[in-house]
């Protein structure tokens, strides 16, 4: 069974339908989605500091997708840790009442910021993993996303909370550094999506971390499913390792029913 551990819903259900259709062509049976994209009037590009009413509404859209595709789409509760109290409350509601299977943290707040700590503690209490965006950028942090965490910052958070399970998105962007930054932390997994399909990235992740800590993701519909799955299918690794990455690992750490 193939599981896509990193996908998104954005603004339309049509896009979700297209995503599910594309996934089915590759026998991707389960897709874990979150909503991290928001717009606000007078703000250029995506709005990176969504208020509680925005992320609550976004999570309800995710829930609608779960209902639209039961057994196929699984939701993550996206929150903005800067609104700590509301975030903790929302995670509890999304997991306990809506059946979401984890939490998504994006670029609103650095992984090392103390606002994040109660979020992680709630995830430990509910026994759900955290998909945390991470990207190491050449030349330092982006002006438009100053709170985007690097793999090093995520590693600090993972050291602080050894009982939490983290999924580091995009192998940390600069994957050669990202892999090494979390290598010694058994509670950190990596997902393969995003960036260009750099030949050798999946092989290095498997060699350094072991295939059991590598998860297949697409970042769909932002990115093309074909290019993302090709990274794993084409990698110079064994069929057993591919099977782990494409689904077995996901089923071990995420409650997919």
């Amino acid at each position: 069974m193939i599981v896509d551990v990193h996908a998104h819903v954005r603004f339309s259900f049509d896009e979700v339908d297209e995503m599910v259709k594309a996934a089915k062509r590759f026998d991707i049976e389960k897709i874990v989605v979150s909503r991290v994209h928001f717009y606000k009037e007078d703000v250029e590009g995506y709005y990176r500091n969504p208020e509680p009413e925005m992320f609550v509404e976004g999570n309800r859209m995710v829930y609608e997708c779960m209902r639209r595709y039961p057994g196929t789409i699984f939701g993550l509760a996206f929150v903005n840790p800067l609104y700590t109290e509301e975030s903790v409350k929302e995670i509890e509601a999304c997991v306990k009442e809506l059946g979401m299977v984890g939490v998504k943290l994006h670029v609103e707040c650095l992984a090392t910021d103390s606002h994040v700590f109660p979020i992680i503690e709630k995830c430990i209490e509910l026994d759900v993993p955290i998909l945390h965006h991470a990207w190491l950028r050449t030349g330092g942090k982006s002006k438009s996303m100053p709170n985007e965490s690097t793999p090093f910052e995520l590693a600090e958070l993972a050291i602080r909370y050894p009982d939490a399970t983290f999924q580091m998105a995009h192998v940390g962007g600069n994957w050669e550094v990202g892999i090494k930054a979390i290598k010694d932390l058994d509670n950190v997994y990596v997902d393969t999506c995003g960036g260009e399909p750099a030949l050798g990235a999946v092989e290095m992740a498997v060699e350094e971390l072991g295939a059991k800590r590598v998860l297949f993701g697409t970042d769909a519909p932002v990115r093309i499913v074909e290019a993302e799955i090709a990274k794993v299918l084409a990698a110079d690794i064994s069929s057993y390792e591919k099977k782990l990455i494409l689904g077995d690992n996901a089923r071990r750490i995420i409650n997919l029913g």
Partner: protein
Amino acid sequence: MIIDSNAYLGGDPFRELKYGNIKGLLKLLDRTGIDKSIVSSMKSIYHTNHETGNLELFSKLKKYPNRFVGLACINPTFPGAIKFMHLCYSKFGFRGLKLHPNYHGYRLTDEVSLKLIEESAKLDWPVHIQMRMKDERMQHFLMQVAGTPVKDVLSVAELFPKVKFILGGTKPRELPETYKYGNVYFENSFVSGPQNIIREMVKQVGSARILFGTHMPLLYPEAALLMIRMADISEEDRKRILGENCKNIYSL
């Protein structure tokens, strides 16, 4: 026939490449079922003297005329560039010009560049403009190179309407601006999303202006290939993109 419009021979200064030599490229062709690749020299991008990389490319490719076609990677600011380009045409049998303006430190609209394009047009050569080699977010800190400006591409496309310009390493957001120029073509190695972008590109510009390109050995060639193989387009369009367009453009 499947023809890859964008491959490289040689090493990357900042990362080990398992398939960077000629045997590696052949292995990638064989494992993916790609019949032929249009190849240029990676060495000629990074070395001050662009000639050595092109000489190496010639010496390696000549043993495999059915699998590889060479492009001359020329830095127009290097002394004797035009003369050397003619050598690439007459002696090496290369079939087009490859430009890396951002790595070679000039603008496409600079006089030296325009002169080179003008001369290559006399050879009836297509011009491949590489917009970038790597995602700017992930370059080595010693070599942070911004993408080639799209507006410069538009300027030369307008100045040389009869020259076919192939854009390599184009980000999806850069594409629409160039659509109105019928002499601008695109390869898909950096076309990462959204999901139906190939179908949309075909709708916007037609399949005759889209070329399959892998950017190997830096990227998994299977990524670009699967993207075209599975695209929601007609079989006729797919055939064009996978090989026929490249065959026509480079008169193979």
